[in-house]
């Protein structure tokens, strides 16, 4: 090891190492197909969302762009809705918006949630207890219901403001998951050793605990994103979403409002739903795969 790292990294000395690392990744991927499948699904959706604006004509999402209620055909692969908008274009425009809500809210929830989780798991005494109390109370109150109260008061939400409102209520799950992991990790031998070496609490959290928690943090982030999207679509279906933005949830809301199900306009509600379900399954597989990575006891026991 010392020879490879001490010598200036030439291509000859690095390539076998990268090769073996790549082989390691591939062989791990084979052992954890759940994670690979989930990552593939999400990557496809994200790439699709990034590329699509260049391929699809944005004008097709304007109302009365086409005739109303057309079933899927060659011109409109996913048909048109009762506003005369092309469904394929709507989905293409809506998917990144929904993913965006999930990412903003999920990231904020991860920051808030893991900060409180580390505090609650690591510190004993009044600080830990009070954070735990706040988390327990917040966990008991169904977040979606409070979101409904807030959103019905704010009314005119945008994608960004909705994401922030959601983030303020989506963190307790992360706090609980991270908190319980930290609680068990702080009992391990390396924590007192670090303390004897004169590390402060903060240093132990960032230098000793954080690296060990990475898979859990990853799983918590995915869980937070999926919770945030679930809340967002819930609010949107109730009509509390961003009225002027075409997210996937808003598309379902409009189809509900125009009784698309009982009018037989299946392409209107089914198209956004297929994307949503694929998104949830992808996220679910990733978090399951990360669980397996973090918790080897679960690996291939059954």
């Amino acid at each position: 090891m010392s020879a490879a790292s001490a010598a200036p990294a030439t291509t000859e000395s690095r390539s076998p190492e990268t090769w073996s690392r790549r082989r390691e990744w591939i062989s791990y991927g084979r052992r954890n197909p759940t994670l690979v499948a989930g990552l593939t699904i999400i990557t496809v959706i994200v790439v699709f969302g990034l590329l699509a604006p260049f391929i699809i004509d944005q004008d097709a999402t304007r109302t009365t762009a086409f005739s109303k209620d057309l079933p899927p055909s060659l011109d409109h692969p996913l048909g048109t809705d009762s506003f005369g908008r092309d469904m394929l274009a709507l989905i293409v425009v809506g998917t990144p918006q929904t993913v965006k809500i999930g990412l903003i809210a999920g990231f904020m929830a991860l920051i808030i949630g893991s900060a409180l989780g580390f505090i609650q798991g690591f510190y004993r005494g009044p600080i830990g207890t009070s954070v735990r109390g706040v988390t327990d109370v917040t966990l008991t109150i169904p977040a979606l219901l409070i979101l409904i109260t807030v959103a019905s008061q704010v009314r005119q939400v945008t994608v960004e403001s909705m994401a922030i409102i959601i983030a303020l209520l989506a963190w307790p799950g992360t706090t609980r998951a991270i908190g319980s992991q930290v609680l068990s990790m702080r009992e391990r031998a390396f924590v007192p050793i670090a303390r004897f070496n004169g590390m402060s609490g903060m240093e132990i959290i960032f230098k000793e605990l954080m690296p060990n928690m990475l898979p859990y943090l990853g799983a918590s982030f995915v869980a937070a994103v999926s919770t945030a999207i679930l809340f967002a679509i819930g609010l949107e279906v109730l009509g509390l979403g961003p009225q002027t933005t075409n997210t996937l949830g808003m598309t379902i809301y409009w189809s509900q409002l125009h009784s698309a199900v009982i009018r037989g306009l299946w392409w209107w509600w089914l198209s956004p739903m297929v994307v949503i379900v694929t998104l949830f399954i992808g996220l679910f597989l990733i978090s399951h795969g990360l669980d397996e990575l973090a918790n080897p006891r679960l690996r291939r026991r059954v």
Partner: protein
Amino acid sequence: MSLGYLLRRVGMFLLVIWVAASINFVIPRLARGDPIQAQFAQLETLGIRTSGMDQVVAAYKKRLGLDRPIVEQYFSYLWNVARFDFGPSITYFPAEIGRLIVQRLPWTIGLLTASTIIAFIVGNLLGALLGWPGSSRWVKWLVPILMPLSAIPYYLLGLILIFTFAFTFKLFPLGGAYSTGAKIELAPAFTLDIFYHSILPALSIVLSVTGFWMLGMRGMMVTNMGEDYMIMAEAKGLSPLRIFLRYAMRNAMLPQVTGLALTFGGIIAGSVLVEVIFDYPGMGWILWYAIRANDYFLIQGIVFVLVVSVALAMLVLDLLYPFVDRRIVYVRR
């Protein structure tokens, strides 16, 4: 059960309710100066006008007493909420919000209790079979079917169910809780009608929740299989069925009961949306109506009652838990 635990748990319950009530008090006052004027200004811009609007405004002015100091407002608000007195609804004026909610509550409780219990039993049984080495192969096939279903929100599953079974095959009604024009009475025919209407909404909850319990139970079973008492039970020559039910499943189920308390909030929130999709006349339905009519005080009342129901269910489950798991009692002392 120790008295200290009981007191702590009841204290927690009261704390949750107090926080929820305070959130309801703060939010409208945070947004704008005068909550009444703001509400009615919003109603006017939306073009919603109830006849005798002045009467409603006067009733609310008197009720909220906005000219009094804020602390006084807060305590009179808490006193009202403690008696479940939420004042009159704007859209249904002068009907009391409390009475509107009481009419809707039984539908939601019935639908939720039935589907939660069914999902809990079926999911745990399937999960236990999955983690049991002696169970047949076909059980393993359930994982790839139920796992994706547990990743789908219930209300979206509901849309698929309505389209398939109600719209395309016309096997079930499109929505509602009973046939239009049915006489509401305690007769077998009417009960059957209610049951028939509740199958699809209940199924959409059951299908997606079952997978969740199944996965949790499987993990628990696997961890339990290696325990000493399992080997002991086998060595004693007990029948496999007895080992499965009394030793493996009973012990694996205990954490699941705690899980039930923790997921209850999510189930309630999700079922609100199921009711919207199925036009089911419970709390979710009236909440949707209130949101569309911008009846903020009605929304507030519904949300508060739902929060209290969730907290109450969790309290009851937590207090019953020591009776299910005797080890807890020992630890608490």
